[in-house]
């Protein structure tokens, strides 16, 4: 019997050696180890053996089973490995095909610039104030020291609704409204973003509707040097830490002294290029010390308090920051333009 078992083992191992597919392997497993397989067949004759022989033959039979099982297991392992490899090969994707992106829109570039500027000033302790787009003549002009017939009204041709109501030509009326609302309390530190309107024919640099951001600070000891310090900090945060400013005397009815502010060119850094018309400087905002009459009309004693104000055009800054060459892009709302701002 022992010989039979050995022969079975030899035969099984020989056959297993050449197995090349899982089906055949399974067949052989059934053939030799199955319930009706060859091994079982041989072991059926165990009953005829003596008590001494049985454990010996049993041991041999177990060894034979073990040897065959081991080979089958290793073959199975190999087949599984092969199968896995084949599946992985079959599942290969073209990694150069594009992925499915998250849906993603962008805020309008003007909103983006306004938010950036708001954040800079919020960081400097400013509140954000707002006012109506339709203003009274009083708040748009008179409260800002531009009485009727003032020559400065030449500078702004406005959209009137009635003799007394108009689309605001500047965000400065928000300053006047804020002062009255604060009832003489200090410090006042606000910025006011918003839409403004002027009767300009639209072209590459003009739009009858545009956006401004005004700032106003009132306190007991506000100096023109503080205005310079504030603006320098702002432009360095907005345009980069090497940005410089230059103030030139100018005129606004609501400030005295008044200044136009240039920044060193955002493109060339001041060495001169097409953007700055080879001057090295770009005009970006107007500012000055709040005119005593404006303080007075706002309920602040100009002998006790002083303040500064500044104002800038959002479109202008957006054009400089992003290199946009035509202001009309902002209001055409071509998605091919707007999607370019889907970035942090």
């Amino acid at each position: 019997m022992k010989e039979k078992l050995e022969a079975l083992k030899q035969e099984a191992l020989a056959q297993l050696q050449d197995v090349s597919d899982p089906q055949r392997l399974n067949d052989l497993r059934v053939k030799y180890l199955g319930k009706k397989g060859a091994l079982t067949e041989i072991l059926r004759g165990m009953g005829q053996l003596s008590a001494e022989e049985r454990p010996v033959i049993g041991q041999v039979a177990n060894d034979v089973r073990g040897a065959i099982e081991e080979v089958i297991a290793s073959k199975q392992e190999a087949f599984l490995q092969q199968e896995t490899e084949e599946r992985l090969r079959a599942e290969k994707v073209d990694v150069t095909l594009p992925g499915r992106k998250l849906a993603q829109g962008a805020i309008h570039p003007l909103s983006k610039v306004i938010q950036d500027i708001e954040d800079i000033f919020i960081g400097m302790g400013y509140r954000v104030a707002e006012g109506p787009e339709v203003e009274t003549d009083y708040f748009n002009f008179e409260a800002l020291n531009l009485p009727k017939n003032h020559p400065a009204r030449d500078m702004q041709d406005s959209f009137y609704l009635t003799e007394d109501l108009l689309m605001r030509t500047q965000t400065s009326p928000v300053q006047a409204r804020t002062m009255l609302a604060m009832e003489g309390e200090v410090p006042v530190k606000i910025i006011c973003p918003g839409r403004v309107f002027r009767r300009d024919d639209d072209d590459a640099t003009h739009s009858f509707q545009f956006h401004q951001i005004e700032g106003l600070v009132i306190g007991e000891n506000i100096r023109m040097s503080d205005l310079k310090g504030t603006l320098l900090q702002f432009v360095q945060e907005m345009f980069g830490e090497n940005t410089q400013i230059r103030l030139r005397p100018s005129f606004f009815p609501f400030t005295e002294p008044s200044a136009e502010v240039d920044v060193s060119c955002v493109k060339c850094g001041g060495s001169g290029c097409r953007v700055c018309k080879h001057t090295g400087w770009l005009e970006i905002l107007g500012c000055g010390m709040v005119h005593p009459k404006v303080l007075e009309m706002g309920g602040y004693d100009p002998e006790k308090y002083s303040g500064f104000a500044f104002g800038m055009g959002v479109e202008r800054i957006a054009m400089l920051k992003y290199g946009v060459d035509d202001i009309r892009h902002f209001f055409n709302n071509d998605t091919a333009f707007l999607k370019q701002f889907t970035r942090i």
Partner: protein
Amino acid sequence: MRVSTDWLSDYISLEGVSAEELAGRITSAGIEIDVIEKRNQGISKVVVGYVKSKEKHPDADKLNVCVVDAGQEEDLQIVCGAKNVDAGQKVPVALVGAKLPGGLDIKKAKLRGVLSQGMICSAKELGMNDKLLPKELQEGILVLPADTEIGKPIVDVLGLNDEVMELDLTPNRSDCLSMLGAAYEVSAILGRELSLPEPEKDIVEVHERAADHIAVTIGAKEQCTHYAARYISGVTIAPSPLWMQNRLMAAGIRPINNIVDITNYVMLEYGQPLHAFDADRLENGAVHVRMAEDGEKMVTLDGQERTLAPHMLVIASGGKPVALAGVMGGLDSEVTDNTVNIFLESAKFDGGTVRKTSRQLGLRSEASSRFEKEVDPAAVIPALNRAASLMAKYAGGKVHQGIAEAGSAASEPKVITLSLEKLNRYLGTDLSLLEVKTIFSRLHFASGDAAQGLVDVQVPTRRGDITLDVDLIEEVARLYGYDNIPTTPIEGPTTPGSLTKAQAIRRSLRKLLTHGGFQEVLGYSFIHPKQAERFTALEQEGKAVKLAMPMSEDRSVLRTSLLPQLLDIAAYNLNRKQPDLALFEIGNLFHTHEEVLTKQPQERPVLGLLLSGRTGAKQWNVQPAKVDFFDLKGAIETVLDYLGIAADQISYEANQPAGFHPGRSASVFVQHGGNKQLLGVLGQIHPKLQQELDLEDTYAAEILLAPLYELTNDRVAYRDLPRFPGMERDLAIVVNEEVEAGSLIQVIRENAGELLQQVQVFDVFTGSKLGEGKKSVAISLMYRHQDRTLTDEEVAQVTEKAVTALQQTFGAELRK
């Protein structure tokens, strides 16, 4: 204001200072100069020549052969094509080897076989603005006065060695609308002495009295504080001297004749507009300054008949207006070639009056633009004298003794007290009294000794813009140099910066929507009146507000809805082959409840949404779906969820809001404080309108933001996570098609008791199997008890209760 540096040098030495440098320094002191015009645009070897003879060219009809004495060793033969060339003229001659503006080189040449040794030039060929020349000189060669010296370089004769700075004046600096004003400014900047004309010394009067010939009275004393006139007799009208013409042209004014040119010259010099009347055309040489009568007519110098109004100031003579004060003279009393006696006016007219008149008549002149900004009252008499003396000199007139005058000039300088301490506190500087006084002396402002840090500063009347101490502080600051003011941080208490709740919510909405694939757009606040009537559901009582003077009909009404422009934007993008759109805008709507607008209209912020085309971008492995009502509604639900507004506060009603597809639109309401409040509208745009605008199926919504600001709940409160499993039951209910899913859910909620946690529709379909007019709604119900596991029996029981209610309410059948 165009300032000739050559002319400026009459009053102040510009030695060693180039025009560029000067312009830079003027700019940094506050008056911007962007343009410096070189009058000589590259002329060399052009001299004055005398045309000795002119003969026809033998072979060319249009050419002449001239013999010209140009001060060279020999006379020159020059072929010239100009019609107006003639023997006996003095003309500019470009010699062989000359250069002309535009890079033209003059060479010896043969023209149709005849030798030409140079070229006779037109004004244009010399680079001059020939629009300032009389018409006959625009077309042909430039003819110079007969007494011009032969051989003299033309640049000297025409004053072309000049550079003109264009001063871009802010409205407060009208003092620099004059050469003398500019000279004062330059003197303050350079710190150099001024030498000013002294007309009182120059003027020579004859014995006869002006008062015997002219008289002046003022009826409108508020509008005309001072009116002065001189009488100059026996003038000869002729061209003014070339140097004067050159200066006028440099300033951009066309020379006319000696009298008119002198009034213009002195206006440029002093900033005081003058007017010369033909004295013999005035009744008895007498004028009266008064307001116009309503409907009164006069013909102005430009030949136009003007109908006057009572707010206009006129100069009248013999009861009729002869000039519109400060704006334009009358045709009848104009100086003509035959004029002999001059009534010369110099006056101070009220700026506002002149401004209103010139605006209303659409008549702007050099004079009106100066009067509008208030001329210096102290210049009235000196300018009058200056012009009179020039008329004596260059028009052969006799200046009669005395000035006919009414009113008087308030020409005392203003005294303003300045505190040195305030100045330094205001600017953040540390200037000494001496430094400050030095600046004032450069400005020609006298300043007294300082007592207790206070200085009295005398401000001359020419600087009408300076009325307060802060104006003086600005003068000091700009001449000290803004660059020299230090840069400091604000001192004092710090303040926390912040956004308001509304601002913060708008920012959150922008973030949420952009991250959900929506693109922000910005429309205009103005729309077409027709557009204003399209989407009226949000505000049914309010009316649209119109602009009084719109630039176009398309932009003539304040927007009453964001949707018309969102649709325009969609159409614009569709035209550019960008049909898949998810857009939003946050902006204000304007409505009034008044018949006649007397106060500011209501301004309400809203969120507008638009979807069109397909969802998502075109991708290689995704089937894009066309957007529908539920994409839009889902966006709104996401917004409301995000703002913490509970779904059970919100209801959607298919009430057919205006402008939308009646079957695919709804209004959104919010339950708030016991009131049901309209929150917004949503739906497909009405197919008729879609067609009109060439749009594909487009869905849009408009949501009021003010209620959202109020209802936003940013407090997140933790709820215990469920510890026991829930049980799900699905129902397929067949009902009539018009039964709304919302009502089914509501009935289920009301009947399924507290165990019911969630109800969700997961399928809706119709089909012939269900029967005509029927639909199947599949609903999933989820039950859970907080403290124990549910039994099948209790879930079956509550479900049964809900089903029974559905059967009773809607005749619903359960589909097995």
